[in-house]
């Protein structure tokens, strides 16, 4: 009984770690867009920034 709980606790912990090291693709895309906008200054440019569909 106790052993089962220890096994589950270990599983739970490893699941947490897995989530933490998972690359946040959506967040990275958001960050990239923000930096690109600033570097290229596309917001102030005469051409409007179009939001592409992924």
């Amino acid at each position, binding site marked *: 009984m106790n052993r089962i709980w220890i096994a589950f606790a270990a599983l739970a912990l490893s699941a947490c770690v897995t*989530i933490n090291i998972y*690359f946040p693709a959506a967040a990275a895309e958001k*960050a990239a867009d923000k*930096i690109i906008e600033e570097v290229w200054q596309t917001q102030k440019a005469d*051409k409007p920034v179009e939001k592409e569909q992924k």
Partner: protein
Amino acid sequence: MIKNLIKFFVSLFALTAALNAFAVDLEINTPGVNAIKQSMQARHAELAPLYASGAVGLTSDGMVSLRDAGAVPLPQRQAVNALVAAENRDRNALYAEIANANGHPEWEAEIRSTFAQRWIQRAQPGWWVQSGGGWSQK
């Protein structure tokens, strides 16, 4: 026993959902990132006409490259090469800096490929971008 297990998994799910909520944004507001960003922003004024003329294109690995040296008059070629090299240094530093700022240096390659896609997707019409090894015009 089963009830306890269900409780356990429900709380585990709640915990992971909460952890995910904290991780929705990447940290990009650090002195290092901001300094690189400003340097790239200043350089863009010089690079923009080169993108437009097709002399310089956006590569599929998140860099810039001199793709048509013939579009640059010979006397300026060295300056353009230096500009491209400086831009690529900044871009490499930017990807590494973002990965480090978020405590995951191993994310650098993924950050680079995310940026590569976004640079290309957001490139202005007429600019040259690399896709699958070849160049194409937006």
